[in-house]
């Protein structure tokens, strides 16, 4: 059990460090197809309400929203680093509490929710890890790098619950490539 934890911790630590080091992701290509939302498929067009029907505007005419990039503030980053160090020592509760502090500073930063989800995975709480991953996906909308990390976490969480088909479906999402 402890050994399993340690290898997991090491893995997470490395992936966390890699995510920190990767810094600024490139946004050269954004998928043309709107990616379907995790939780709801796009709704069909509503019934037209007005008899006057000038040419409707097609979505392709509108410019895509600018890509977003989430970063951790220096304060939260230092806490995240601290949490990684605690995790590496096997202090899961300490890591959790430290991330809790960071959450008070940046409660809607998707990168932080990914970190929290990773700790939940180490604790063996794949349901909370899944929720954190989904929240990070929602908060990270438009941020390919953040969504990619959240997607990996979500896949891990789903697999841990034996929900392989759903995990497989996530793998095909645009942000996973």
């Amino acid at each position, binding site marked *: 059990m402890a050994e399993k934890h340690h290898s997991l911790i090491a893995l997470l630590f490395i992936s966390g460090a890699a995510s920190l080091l990767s810094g600024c992701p490139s946004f050269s290509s954004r998928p043309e197809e*709107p*990616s*379907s*939302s*995790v*939780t*709801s*498929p*796009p*709704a*069909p*067009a*509503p*019934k*037209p*309400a*007005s008899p*006057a*029907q*000038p*040419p*409707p*505007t*097609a*979505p392709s*005419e*509108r410019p895509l*929203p600018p890509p*977003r990039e989430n970063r951790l*503030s*220096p*304060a*939260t*980053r*230092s*806490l995240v680093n601290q949490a990684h160090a605690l995790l590496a020592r096997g202090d899961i*509760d*300490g890591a*959790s*509490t*430290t991330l*809790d*502090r960071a*959450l*008070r*500073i940046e*409660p*809607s930063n998707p990168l932080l929710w990914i970190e*929290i989800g990773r700790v*939940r995975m180490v604790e063996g709480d794949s349901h*909370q890890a899944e*929720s*954190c991953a*989904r*929240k990070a996906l*929602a*908060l*990270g*909308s*438009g941020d390919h790098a953040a969504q990619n990390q959240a997607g990996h976490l979500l896949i891990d969480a789903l697999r841990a619950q034996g929900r392989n088909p759903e995990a497989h479906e996530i793998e095909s999402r645009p942000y996973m490539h």
Partner: protein
Amino acid sequence: MARSRSRLWRRIFFAAAISLLLIAAAFGIWVVHLDHLVTREFQGRHWSVPAHVYAAPLELYVGAALSADDLEEELHRVHYHRGDPAQGPGNYRRVGNAFDIEARRVRFIDELREPVRVSIHADAAAITSMRLASGGDLPVFRLDPPVIGSVFPIHGEDRLVVAPADVPLLLKKGIKAIEDRRFDEHHGVDVLGMMRALWVDLRAGRVVQGGSTLTQQLVKNYFLSDEQTIGRKLTEAAMALRLEAHYSKEEILVAYLNEVFLGQDGTRAIHGFGLGSEYYFAKPLQELDVQETALLIGLVKGPSYYDPRKHPERALTRRNLVLKELAEARVIDDKTALRAAATPLGLRPPGGSYVPAYIDLVRRHLKRDYAEADLSAAGLSVYTSLDPRAQAAAERAITQDLQRLDARAAQKGSRLEGAQIIAEPNSGDVVAVVGGRDVGTDGFNRALDARRPIGSLVKPAVYLAAIETGRYTAATLIEDAPIQLKLPDGSIWAPQNFERDTNGMVPAARALAESLNLATVKIGLDVGLPKVAETLEHLGLDSQPTLNPSMLLGTVEMSPLEVVQIYTSLANGGFRARLRAVRAVLDDKGHALKSFKVQVEAAAPSAAVYQVDRMMMLVPTRGTAREAAARLPKGLIIAGKTGTSSDTRDSWFAGFTGSYLSVVWVGYDDNRVTGLTGAAGALPVWADTMASLKPVSYAPVTPDAVEDRWIGYLDGMETSASCPNAVEIAVPTGTVLPANPSCAPANGPAPNPSPSATAGDKIKQWLKNIIH
């Protein structure tokens, strides 16, 4: 003859001796019994140290919205003294906007931090730099968590027990000088003092002096009733003697100071100088000055007779008499006594650091989440999510606004009541709870226990249910027209708009913003009551609402706390966060008994919630909450919903910024008509609270598969931002919207606003404005 006589005497002697022996034995057993009782009680109290309850520590970092003055205020909140940091932990120096702080040794949930010197700079708006005095980097630093109270988690009594080291010398000397001059000499009973008291009483013909020692008073507090009989006096004296035989003077004195009755706050008895100090002066015992200490000492003689709030004159006279006697006993000098006697009573204003409504929530969460056996351990520390600044802002807004609103409300001469809860919606942390107008009083906690119809606060759930079906968007036109429904019991239900008007075809966005009842009922019936109920349950409603059409207009009853739970899901993209007041409980060694992690759950699809949020952002710009703007920082973007129950019995506002979610209720305790809509009653309280918290704008992330578009507020047709009455809404990406022929969207034909339509809109809007 003589022989029989001496035999008789012998018999009498024996009988007397045996009787004496028996009496002595009985007396001995009685004393042993008393001894047992008194030591058990003393030990029990002695060791029943309450759990200390802490607010969340303030996190400091570069960019934190804390001015230099704010920072100093926060330092004072945790009792740092301006001076020379070299004097030791707890001191700081401020030069201009630069602070040098010698931080104390302090226990947090996750670490025991040793004293450390830090240098912090702040400007008029925020913290600009931080470093360790030793030169090291300091990206983030937290202040000591403020103590907000103490609870006996099992029996719920709340007391601020002070440790011997924390009792000021003035109080120790003072209480002895006034209540028991020979405390250090006697052995529990002061025979000389009793005789003197008896002499005084006999001369006066009534009981003037009790003559009880502090030890006797302590025993009386532990066990005995107030009746004045010889038997009781004897028992008291015997117990006092036994107590003194077992414990030191210091232990007895401190126990007395923690036990003595100092006043009554509603149903709550104020026991002990620690709590008394907080209750009357809102400061820790160590910070009381001479006149404040004298007042508390004076109260011992008769807490209700000298109640400084009810009888300030009597209290002042009593305090000054105590000061005079302290000077005579050389505890203080004459000059100090005279100077202190010239000061006013200086009672704390309502509120302050004592937060009974929040502690109440903490107590309930502890009871819900912890095993009783765990909580009986001594010296626990309870770490909560309370944010003292948010709490103070909410208390200020409730007390000030309700005072103003009393004059506007329907029942003249009656007192409006109110409640407010503030939470951080992502984590579910409850940061402030106000249970009523008398914020420092432990009374009926309306924030948790007042369940009232929520009125239109329910509407976002109706629109969310509609959008989730995929058949509605914010631009869908709905008919706002009279509705008559035959209910199962045969009666006819005919709801009306608040203004008793009808508006024809209106976009859903406008129907929600202006809280149109008829259009909402139309949507709700189309979507189906079970679907709306299901949406409410997903959002976090515990109970199952009755499937009655009037449910669409908010007949469902909820407490402000329950509303907060539902709105967390709306405020953060459809993720329900479990509300959290207690973060962790540590034992006396600093080990966590249990900690509460953030818990989130997907409650509703992010894309649908975002579309509703966009509509709720129109409530303050175009709808029923327009009056908030005047009270809020210019340009602050908020989202929310007003609620008014039938005949304005309940006035609600639930809304969020980028920093906080808050729910406010205003109404009468006896449920009478207030004459106040949600906008007139609860909204100002909400807005004033937020305004003083410097929140950031609400800026939800646009989810995948949804896009922001501009439509006409009145006709729902797509238009461009510069067109009249253009409002921004969100729809599923690629939704086809009819375009406005006279003022087309930016990417379509050139805009050509129609002046007549514009004028009509303006008049209509103007009319709306004066009606509201």
